[in-house]
């Protein structure tokens, strides 16, 4: 375990060290001390690496992550794990808005709550939120799975494409073209797998599934009010 202290080192020095270690396929473990809400911590990692951030982070922590396992022992600011490609990002506390935005792959595991626009425009990432999520989550979500153990805010899944949404609690309202769908055995199996990966204490049967009604896929003037 190598400790990198943000009170001593610059952001550039820390990211350069982590990026170099990831690239070298070292499979090493790093701890980042004193993050104090810094932005762009542990971004652009491309390779197996374990990073533990000892505190809360600012914007875009773990941005565009590939393969690395990053844990934030605190809360994460806006855009955590944005455009993640693969790997795992775990937030022990809460996540701010746009968590996992445009993510292509990997698992974003949020132990607390996530704010608005969680999973916006997601493109294949899996996101598990142990608490609740804010409004406009999974807006224009294209691919991947969003699992919420708590409640969802207004306009869930607005204008979504092929992403799947699973919510255990209450959904305040569904967005345009988002509908509740039948939970088939393959969905229960998928959900069980995601819950196990995220270490979440919940049964797949307790969830409801939401997805696209696909009425907005090709423009039709009779649906203009939905836009």
């Amino acid at each position, binding site marked *: 375990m190598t400790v990198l202290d943000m009170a001593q080192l610059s952001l550039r020095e820390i990211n*350069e060290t982590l990026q170099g270690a990831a690239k070298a396929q070292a499979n090493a473990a790093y701890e980042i001390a004193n993050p104090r809400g810094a932005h762009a911590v542990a971004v652009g990692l491309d390779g197996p690496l374990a990073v533990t951030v000892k505190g809360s982070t600012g914007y875009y922590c773990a941005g565009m992550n590939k393969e690395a396992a990053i844990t934030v022992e605190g809360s994460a600011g806006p855009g955590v794990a944005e455009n993640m490609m693969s790997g795992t990002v775990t937030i022990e506390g809460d996540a701010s808005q746009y968590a996992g935005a445009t993510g292509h792959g990997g698992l974003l595991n949020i132990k607390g709550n996530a704010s608005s626009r969680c999973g916006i425009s997601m493109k294949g990432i899996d996101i598990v939120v142990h608490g609740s999520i804010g409004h406009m989550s999974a807006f224009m979500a294209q691919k991947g799975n969003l699992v919420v153990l708590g409640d969802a805010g207004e306009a869930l899944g607005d204008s979504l494409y092929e992403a799947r949404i699973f919510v255990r609690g209450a959904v305040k309202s569904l967005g345009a073209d988002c509908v509740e769908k039948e939970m088939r055995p393959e969905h229960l199996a998928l959900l069980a797998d995601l819950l196990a990966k995220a270490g979440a204490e919940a049964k797949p049967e307790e969830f409801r599934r939401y997805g696209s009604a696909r009425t907005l*896929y090709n423009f039709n003037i009779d649906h203009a009010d939905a836009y």
Partner: protein
Amino acid sequence: MDKTPPTEPRQSWTFSREVNAEIRRAAETGIYDIRGGGAKRRVPHFDDLLFLGASMSRYPLEGYREKCGTGVTLGTRFAKKPIELKIPVTIAGMSFGALSGNAKEALGRGATLAGTSTTTGDGGMTEEERGHSEKLVYQYLPSRYGMNPDDLRRADAIEIVVGQGAKPGGGGMLLGQKITERVAGMRDLPVGIDQRSACRHPDWTGPDDLEIKILELREITNWEKPIYIKVGGARPYYDTALAVKAGADVVVLDGMQGGTAATQDVFIENVGQPTLACIRPAVQALQDLGMHREVQLVVSGGIRSGADMAKALALGADAVAIGTAALVALGDNDPKWESEYQKLGTTTGAYDDWHEGRDPAGITTQDPALAARLDPVEGGRRLRNYLNVMTLECQTLARACGKSHVHNLEPEDLCALTMEAAAMARVPLAGTDWWPGKPGF
């Protein structure tokens, strides 16, 4: 047998044939008109400016003897690896999806032969364009289709698209006809749907957030890549100032004549400012911040010739970018396809239904048979020729004004033919020493 003289049938200027046809079209279909290209309406443009040339008080340069430099370096503010271009004209962002793979390859080939850069678009980076573009600018758009850190690192610069001249405040659109399996795969979308791209970025709002987003992109790419911010011609003074504040290396400013692959005609024709009106406020913002030439300004939207290029540079731009003109150089709207344009209900020069994917010239299409009509090698040669002519023309005008580098052109070298152009370009109306809004008058 008194005969009252007949009334001559009189067409309304307000309700012209064109206007009435659009009303009927709207009544029939119930949907607005979508098309490609930029504003078609007549707006004050570079045609309304003239160079004064050298005479008694100015010394010209010998056309075939004395050098007139054209090189430009973009990204000198923060990037470790700025882009050096031989000529101050680049190829603007156009997506694979909107354009065929062959067209993207032709743009890369032509730009590379001429010593300049080309740009990806909304839909990710293709091997065709990366492989054939020596210098490739990778666009970072609200949709983030195909966005990934590997392409970010193999780009030569990153262009964060906030807006474009054809539709400042508008998102993207690619209709189902063009969403083939390959295009859909790159965008993580189902085949054949109408693709809507958001008009705002998903993970930042406003210039304060953007500053942090730029920090992230620089951290991911080791501070090597120049970062451009592209804005549509909306509020050029403030947009430029805020782009500088957010940390841009380069500001790309696209006026309303700048094209798009597809959007509503009402948007193209009614939102944004003419390119000519955008340059001076943007340059003023850079000068007020002490950043002129430190942060480079690239101007696009209706650039067609070396004369347009020279005038944009004289008003303070560091480079220009072309999109529509590059497509015309490749063969877009060529008279040789007239009979096919007629079948599509249009004519050479007016064809703008690029979103339908039936382009006879094989450029704005994903149909393999149509796309095969464009030979990327020949297209690249044509684009190189055209870029070379633009550059020679620009040098001719610069030498006539006594300049040993095209960047030495200045507003003082210009006059305007109309009051409107004088006001927008802030150069004197021809034959006077005055322009509307000039201080002290």
